[in-house]
């Protein structure tokens, strides 16, 4: 309960700062839309030159992309801690966080939240809606529940991966270029994994399980029965990866000695 009220306090503070830099907020939402459009354009252009991608057609790939946007929007609204190392470890902000009686990870997530990214949920639903009509897909009432659990699973997978990488900062204070590249690797989960080499498929399934934030869960809604097993693993993977990152975080905090004097 305490955490819920903390969340609303942070959220209202956040909205205040956003309203101060109003133009910037608008530009940020526009740049998100632009980003989403760029990936769509990529798919459209690629299908100008080919009819299918590993046996999947254009609308199916667009549907996967639309699905991906929803958990990704949740992730980028709340777990966008790619600059954790620089912001909290190098500058010593972590000391301030640790003196407070709220779990440090929760505080950082709250401080770094970017609620305007939630806009991506709408874009995702619109894109999925378009593709679903083109493909003539039908959904049962319980599909909504399955959708929600898969979206949450996907968001927690993303969160788990990025928090785990952020915890590297507790062990080593040197700068990494890993974070930006991770965003790129995340993109590969949006394409049918059967086009990749075994090794990459393995990585995308079990090590950096981005395929669970795209092609696997979307396969369920596209009635691709050969992938159902993976599709239903999505929430499980979310719980597992988020728990791992949580444990890593706690271990890291214990090891944290602070930077400078």
């Amino acid at each position, binding site marked *: 309960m305490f955490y819920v009220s903390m969340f609303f306090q942070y959220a209202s503070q956040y909205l205040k700062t956003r309203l101060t830099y109003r133009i910037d907020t608008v530009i940020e939402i526009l740049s998100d839309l632009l980003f989403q459009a*760029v990936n769509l354009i990529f798919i459209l252009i690629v299908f100008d030159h080919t009819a299918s991608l590993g046996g999947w057609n254009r609308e199916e790939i667009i549907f996967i992309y639309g699905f991906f946007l929803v958990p990704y929007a949740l992730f980028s609204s709340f777990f966008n801690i790619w600059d954790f190392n620089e912001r909290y470890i190098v500058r010593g902000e972590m000391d301030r966080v640790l003196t407070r009686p709220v779990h440090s990870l929760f505080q950082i997530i709250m401080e770094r939240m970017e609620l305007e990214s939630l806009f991506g949920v709408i874009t995702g639903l619109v894109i999925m809606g378009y593709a679903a009509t083109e493909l003539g897909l039908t959904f049962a009432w319980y599909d909504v529940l399955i959708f929600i659990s898969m979206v949450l699973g996907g968001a927690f997978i993303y969160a788990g991966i990025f928090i785990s990488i952020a915890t590297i900062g507790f062990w080593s204070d*040197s700068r990494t270029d890993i974070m930006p590249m991770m965003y790129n690797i995340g993109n590969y989960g949006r394409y049918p994994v059967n086009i*990749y080499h075994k090794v990459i498929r393995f990585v995308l399934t079990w090590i950096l399980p981005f395929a669970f934030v795209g092609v696997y869960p979307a396969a369920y809604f596209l009635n691709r029965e050969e992938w159902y097993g993976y599709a239903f693993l999505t929430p499980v993977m979310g719980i597992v990866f988020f728990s791992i990152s949580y444990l890593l975080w706690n271990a890291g905090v214990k090891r944290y000695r602070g930077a400078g004097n």
Partner: protein
Amino acid sequence: MSMYLEMIRVRFLMMLAYRTNYYSGILIYSINIGAYYFLWSAIYGNNEEIQGLSVLQMTTYVAVAWMARAFYFNNIDREIAAEIKDGKVAIEMIRPYNYLGMKTMQALGEGIFRLLFFSVPGMIIVALVFPISFSANLSTWLFFFVSLVFSFIVNTQINLLTGIMSFFLFNNTGLIRAKRVVIDLFSGLLLPISFYPLWAQTVMTYLPFQAISYIPSMIFTEGFVGKEIFNAVLLQAFWALILLIPIRLLWSLAKKQLIVQGG
């Protein structure tokens, strides 16, 4: 001049001090290029070539585009924005050097570091794993490096422009992000410009972005031949000159506009 050289050196040494994590970066880059390779192989399917590029050339294109990105990429727009936000820029501006020149030199130091410790070893590793064609032609390499220098200049100029914009917007993370997305798409990093529909290609000839990634990558893969190479490099040089004008204008406006927040 020696002052600016010193700045390149200092930034280079600073990067060198933090080099260990770059090796993990190479691995990540390789996975990235690898995934792209399979994606493109699937896109090609049974096609021999698309828009004059074979699968082999396409793989090379992807690899070289990403490795070149390590060289020209920098965050000086974000650094400038941060310095404006902190108010540090006021101190920087009374120092006896050109602020923008200093930022460019720092970016160059960073770029040279990444070229030597990231792109070159990265390219060798990628070439061992994936089929990549290296040109045997000396002039191709020569033109490639010239065009790489221009891609650094043009990209840095665009970064400076975005950075200067924070004098007017105060908080411009949104703009910085938008710029990054636009560059990824319009520079030819994600897709060669020749893959776009014709009308889009026409629009892009009037924009500076293809000077950043498309031109050096096409030169490297020998997608450009003969006179095309020459024209492409000239186009880059043209943009490098043109972009000086808005930078000058905005910078003098910005200096008048300067409001240091807080402090």
